[in-house]
């Protein structure tokens, strides 16, 4: 189990848990990020900038600040192709 902010780029990952305050969690749920979704980190802004995260399950992309990304716990998805 690793934090999304530490996850390798362009690898299929599965969301295990979304931690953090209620506000942040509600926001992520509303944007379609849930437990068990498959995601992929595609890019990062310079100087520890935000992560560009693609939700493969819902086919959407979201920019997440590092602080937010730290609160999302993921694991490498088993069915990596």
């Amino acid at each position: 189990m690793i934090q999304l902010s530490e996850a390798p780029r362009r690898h299929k990952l599965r969301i295990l848990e979304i931690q953090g305050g209620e506000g942040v969690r509600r926001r992520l749920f509303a944007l379609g990020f849930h437990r068990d979704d498959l995601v992929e980190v595609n890019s990062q802004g310079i100087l520890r900038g935000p992560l560009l995260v693609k939700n493969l399950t819902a086919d959407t992309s979201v920019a997440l600040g590092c602080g937010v990304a730290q609160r999302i716990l993921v694991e490498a998805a088993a069915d990596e192709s």
Partner: protein
Amino acid sequence: MKVDRPTIIFLGQPNSGKSTLFNAIAGHKALTSNFPGTSLKHTHSEVNIEGRIFNVVDLPGTYSLNPSEPAEKVVLSHLFQEKPDLIINVVDASILGRSLELTLELLEIGYPMIVALNMVDLAEKKGVQIDPGRLEEKLGVRVIPTVAAHGRGLKELLDAAFFCFDHPCPTQAPRWSGDVEEEVARLAEKLPAAVVIAGNPRFTAIKLLEANQTFCLEVLGESEPALKNELDQAKKRIEERRRAQVYEVVSAERHHLALKLGEDSSRVRRGKALGWEQRVDSIIMHPFFGYPILVLIFLAFFFLIFKIGGPLEGRLLAPLARLRVLLGGWLGTGLIFHLADGLLQGVGGGAAIVLPYFIPLLFLMAFLEDLGYLARAGFLLDTFMHRIGLHGKSVSPFILGFGCNVPAVLSTRILESPRDRMITSLLIPFIPCSARTTVILALVAFYLGPVYALGFYFFNILIIALVGKALSFFFKDPSPGLILEIPSLKAPSLAAMARKTYLELKSFVRFAWPLLVGGSVVLSLLQFLSLDRILNSALSPLVVRGLGLPQPLGITLVFGFLRKELSLIMMLQALGVEYKNLLTVISREQILVFTVFVSFFIPCLSTFGILWKEGGKRTAFLSVGLSVTVAVAASLLVRLIF
């Protein structure tokens, strides 16, 4: 159902193309409209379609009916206030699964609804083919495929809407997993009629379960203690069984149901073919190349406006000058000449000096917006925004500010934290809006060269950074992290961009141009009665001694509060010269100081109004104090340097 003047509400997630669809339907046919910059973020129009009159309401995009930002709260309150006869739920077909989450939530309310399956072309490009018939069957409401940007499917959508006005269109709320459904049903049964929203106990029960600690729940605790107890028990049972908070459980139910619906009604035709959008996206979002590209885009933006506007302005001014000479010959120098001259300056100045820069700027802004670049700039600039205590979500209001500060201040409603809204709203008046860009281009670029104008913009950005930094010392609470959706890149449609430009232009002609004309006529009158001298000599200590400007310019600065371009148009009038002879009465340095002062001093009347409305009296006056201080300091600095 037969209604006299039915109300249709357009609702959808952000970037679903909802406003494009709304404009396509209401844009040409609107009888009365509120334009951005008046008072409302949402737009009301009365539309006449095939002889029937409708109220059409466009609400801001929202991801769900559990609002976490003020823009989304507007949606919720209006949804229940308007009691719509029909909801048109605009759905982004290219991300069907996620978009349907809001659709399911809307179905829970039970208002008549049809789904506009928008951007089906984009979905097809992605290799996803959606079967609208199948989706219709699953959702139990009409589903009409549309491509709003090209006007496809509008007729069918309107036909479906007409049908729902004349016939009953019942909806069926989606059902969830047994255990959750059981709790919802149990709670719904016990609700007293007084607390039921929209006549729907099930919807009310769901909202009670998933709402966060709101005022309503507190009130409920006091007025209906038994019900509050029942609610707490239900929450506890769900949370124990699912090992998650209720709001997560409910949201996950919708999420999975929506994904399943999406999968069941669409077919993926081919594998991941990399379209041009993705290829372009990987370059403009690149952690390294993204930044030079961002700078290049803004440079190109600036040069295009200047290269189009400059020559056009020169060409339009010549006949205006000739007309003025003719006018002098006919009317002499009396009152009538002064009135006619003021009128000419206002009308002509608007047409020859403002519009040549204003129209290309509007068009290019529409291009950047429709392309989806604003969110991308937010991603790239997030790091820099942190330096001034904000984050990437404030970038889009800032960029909108280059068009007009008023919608920019309104768009701060997308920011979740009041602190971020406050700082962003205070910084927006420093962004050179189209009016100030006109002043900068028509004075600085025209007389000192485009390099000076560019330098002016950099100086301006520096000032914003400094003020932002200073403000973040006073507002210390940490900003919540960035969560910003990056919508897929879309090739903007010329028609949609032209429509947007046209609507903005219409609002300029209606609201701003009369101010320009009125201001010019008033100045003419003041000059005729020699009243301008009194005001000018009163302002003389600041204008002449402080800023080193000619005394007659004092009055133009005062009028700049109405519209920033007015200062420019009145400047020529006050100095009594033609545009091309300006340098005979004022030096290049003075032009620079004048532009700096006009740009920064006091937000214009409309911006002041919107700051007051959105942030309160304190914010509005704080902004005035801040801008006057910055304007004086910056002008003195420029005067010292040059």
